[in-house]
């Protein structure tokens, strides 16, 4: 009777059952989310160890950026400050979240090398840890949005809740990016540098500081920038009273693409990661 209950580990190189194992890894990683959660909290605590205001440095530096850039660019771009500031605050916070997450994603498996080579943990745990860490960090910016909205006196209506699906989509993409970038950067160590460069360029190419209207009739070209629809699904409901269906279709399309690529990569190469890191 006991034989049936025994946990069995079976690996057969001639029949690797990659998809099933990848699914098992994902299921195990998600069900042990408490581990990823605890590790993410530790990461954040250790990052600001000994610091007086700790992770609220994130809030402070974003606040300084929003005020500084808000005053400068509202003049440069001839925008009304009461319109421009909420736009900038939301954009910058979402963008900073993406821009912090991506480099950490490239590193999420390499930095867990010590654990990967010693403990049989699901790889998705390390990706989840990275996502949680960035969520915690980004959450410190929330008071800032509230302050900006209240000061300007432009509080979004109920349509503001439509930003929630956008946030969830961002979280899903963050997870997929951690899996994909984490793996590819464990194998090819140059990719991390390339990604950093792309992100710098992407900041200027994405309507973070500037508003889409400034592009005039060329605005459709923004759909080639995957960051734009992702950003817009969150910003639109909060600042502009909603988003177009086209933005949502593009956001879902790019997300499906990223998740698909990440899943394919994960299924094919998951078992190799222990040799790569």
């Amino acid at each position, binding site marked *: 009777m006991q034989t049936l209950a*025994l*946990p069995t580990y079976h*690996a057969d*190189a001639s029949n690797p059952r990659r998809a099933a194992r990848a699914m098992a890894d994902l299921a195990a990683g998600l069900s*042990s989310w408490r581990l990823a959660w605890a590790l993410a909290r530790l990461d954040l605590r*250790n990052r600001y160890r000994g610091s007086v205001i700790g992770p609220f440095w994130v809030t402070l530096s974003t606040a300084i950026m929003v005020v500084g850039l808000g005053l400068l660019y509202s003049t440069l771009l001839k925008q009304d400050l009461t319109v421009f500031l909420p736009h900038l605050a939301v954009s910058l916070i979402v963008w900073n979240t993406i821009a912090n997450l991506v480099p950490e994603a490239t590193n999420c498996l390499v930095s867990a090398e*010590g654990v990967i080579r*010693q403990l*049989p943990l699901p790889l998705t745990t390390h990706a989840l840890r990275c996502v949680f860490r960035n969520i915690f960090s980004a959450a410190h910016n929330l008071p800032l949005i509230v302050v900006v909205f209240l000061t300007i006196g432009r509080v979004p209506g109920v349509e503001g809740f439509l930003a929630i699906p956008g946030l969830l989509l961002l979280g899903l993409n963050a997870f997929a990016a951690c899996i994909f970038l984490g793996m590819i950067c464990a194998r090819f*160590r140059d990719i991390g540098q390339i990604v950093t460069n792309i992100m710098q360029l992407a900041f200027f190419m994405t309507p973070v500081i500037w508003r889409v209207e400034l592009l005039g009739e060329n605005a459709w070209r923004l759909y080639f920038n995957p960051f734009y629809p992702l950003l817009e699904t969150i910003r639109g409901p909060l600042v502009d009273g909603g988003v177009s269906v086209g933005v949502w279709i593009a956001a879902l399309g790019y997300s499906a693409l990223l998740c698909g690529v990440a899943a394919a990569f994960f299924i094919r190469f998951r078992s190799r990661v222990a040799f790569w890191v």
Partner: protein
Amino acid sequence: MASIVADGLTIEFPLYHVAARSLKKRLLAKAALRVRTDESNRVVVAALRDLNFTIGRGERVALVGSNGAGKTTLLRTLAGIYEPVGGELTVKGEIGSLIDPGAGMDPDSTGRENIRLRGLYRGMDDAGIAALEADAATFSGLGEFLDVPTRGYSAGMSIRLAFAMATAMSPQILLMDEWFMAGDADFMGKAEERLASLVKGADIMVIATHDFGIVRRWCTRAIRLNAGRIVADGPVEEVLGAMEAGTPLPAPEPAKAEG
């Protein structure tokens, strides 16, 4: 019943970051037996080559062999960290591994926090974690130091904590590397007692060690590895006797290998 069955088990380590051609050539020239280029022109080290063995309930197996013979790699493969490149491996039973005691420890967390973290690593629930905490706290004998970040521990204290956490389990299959022999004399007495009960409770033990004393005292079977192959497998005295008598090995020593 707990069992381990390996059939043609093969592990190869790709050396990805050996980009320089000259280094690659030198490696290949020096150790043509173990380092080779595979079909996609990567340099790979054959860490384990075509291993066949069956370990059944009640067996206490020692993995012996020189540095780089593949002992730790085999342990990690049994633990499910490396997936076989060739062949088949079936491990039936709950695995507990004492491979690296420090893995997953956070130096900025206190001893107590580290114990809880270890519980999470093992996928325990709150009750399990509380039990682990109580057990490891008592056994490590760290007292008030449990609430000090482990960064401030002496080497001996770290080992005590790591040992206490790692051994607070009762797996059916126990995988062990020889790290546990460190620690102060006072602690070793306690440690041995605890290890002995752990070993007694396990259906199968596999230990990688250089220490023949340990092998003779605890093991019933020895597997001798050399350059990633099994060169002898049998009762302890038979295998160790041959090693001590200096029986020449069928394969030459490897030039470069993973431990």
